[in-house]
């Protein structure tokens, strides 16, 4: 064999690369096994499905109704629009209680405060309260708690209105 090492891979180099590649592959595979083994175990039927909140007329305008099992507040704005706010503070995940006397949500952990529509009025929270999709069908308000929707600003486009009969 008259291999020129500068042009060709020698047998020794080839074996080194092969061993290295096999080792790296084994590591990746092991990592994959470990990650999948410990991947989140989500139980079906818990918080995460469609929740029927109630009839449109049972929520007065300018009211905030907590849904403990669904982990959200159903807010009806003074103009009649609905928005469902995830109760988890966008700062560090504390449950944010509604404070009726101050007319705002105040987080007990780091004093973040949110307006009725979830808009931040006091840092450190970096963004408004996440919301869930609200669907109104036949006068019934339903909230889809499967995916919290993150937003940079709370806008009127987030509000859902009951169709006027």
């Amino acid at each position: 064999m008259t291999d020129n090492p500068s042009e060709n891979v020698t047998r020794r180099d080839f074996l080194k690369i092969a061993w290295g590649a096999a080792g790296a592959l084994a590591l990746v595979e092991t990592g994959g096994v470990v990650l999948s083994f410990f991947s989140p175990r989500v139980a079906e039927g818990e918080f995460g499905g469609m929740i029927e909140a109630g009839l449109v007329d049972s929520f007065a305008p300018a009211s905030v109704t907590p849904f403990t099992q669904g982990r959200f507040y159903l807010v009806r704005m003074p103009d009649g629009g609905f928005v469902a706010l995830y109760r988890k503070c966008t700062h560090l995940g504390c449950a944010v209680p509604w404070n009726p006397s101050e007319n705002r949500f105040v987080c007990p952990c780091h004093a973040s405060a949110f307006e009725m529509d979830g808009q931040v009025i006091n840092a450190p929270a970096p963004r408004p309260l996440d919301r869930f999709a609200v669907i109104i069908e036949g006068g019934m308000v339903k909230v889809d708690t499967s995916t919290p929707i993150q937003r940079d600003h709370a806008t009127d486009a987030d509000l859902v209105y009951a169709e006027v009969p």
Partner: protein
Amino acid sequence: MTEPFDPRPEDLKQRVWESIQRDELPPKDDRGRMRVVMNNLVLHLHPSKVAKPTLKFTYTWGLGGLSILLVALLAVTGVMLMFVYTPSPATAYMDMLALQTEVWFGQFVRNIHHWSGNLLVIVAFLHLLRVFFTGGFRTPREFNWVLGVGLLLLVVAANFTGYLLPWDQLAYWAVTVGSSLLSYVPVIGEGLRNFLLGGPEVGAATLTNFYGLHVAIIPLTLMGIVSFHIWRVRKDTLSIPHKLDGTIDGAESNQVEKVTTLPHLVSREVVFALVMTGLILLWSMWVNAPLEAAANPDHSPNPAKAAWYFMGLQELLLHFHPVFGAIVIPALGLGALALVPYQRFDLSAEGVWFRSTKGRRMAIAGALSALVAVPLLVVLDEYVIDLPAMLPTIPTLISNGWIPFAAVLLLVIGYYEGVKRVFKATACEARLSVFVLLVVSFVLLTVIGIAFRGEGMALMLPWEVL
């Protein structure tokens, strides 16, 4: 010539004893004492001889040994607790109540475990300070310093995972807050938190995950690295205390006197361990580990505080955007801490407390600067400066993140250059001063978080908080 077929002694009792303990007890002379150290499993982590000056108590303060003692106490009491505890949300809190009311000495064993864990955070931190202030991280011990920093993180991780296990309100919300910090890590943060918690929120999966980490993964990793840490101390030897003029402290000449480990070092270790064990037992008899109401995911207590060793971090979060408070500043701090021994030394100050006379004055300057600046900045940020409101058009990542971060960084750099010029100091001494400034600042933030933050995390006086 006939060799005896079996040269061992005839007496069975003596043969059994010699098969276990290879050397004569008690050893008669120095040679025998050194052999016992070399041949004994526990004692072989010591060298057979040590430099006499390093035995001085006020040099090491016994802090490394005390850490080992606490790990031993934690292992023993931790295994005992495993027999009466089930990591499930349905049973965990009831098990805690049963432990405290029905199990013989249950409260006592839990107290020892709880207080030893908390004390370990303090002792490990003080050990780090001692090594830094005496220049014990110098060549060839750089990597052992890095191992030590890793051990400190593992100790905090062990405390954090143990925090959740009682499943009371304090535990539940401290872990909710603590794990939410992770979700601010760019790109992988959200996935990482879900992986750790075993789901989107703290729940049953979180409890099993944390239990596995707390009783198996963290202790095993910790003990592995501790062995490596001590083995390196043995290989590299302890640094020797020096006086300011460079002479060896506690020695007549510059020739280091060596004494046998047994009994000079071992007897000191045993006495100190016994005294400390006695104090921990007394404390655990009188002061109970806290247990609040059972965890209630629907209601965060007010104020909801993290574990005390995270209160400095939580305080940072009140002043900085979370990306800076939870990620950038702690990561920079840890990175700088790990790199401390790899900087160039322009001073031969191994074993000298605070490097030099100038270094001692500069350490005081650093502490005083922090004592003035930190409360001032906290009060200013609380009542006067509200950057996001002053700059409403700019994203809070900049107005509440980059701007205050850059300001603090400039203050620290200005301080470094300032003290270097004022004291006409070397880089070693100026770095020492900045280190003291940052450590005292972190301790002050922790104290403010613990004692000066009340309902709604508003600033209050300690007697309104505690």
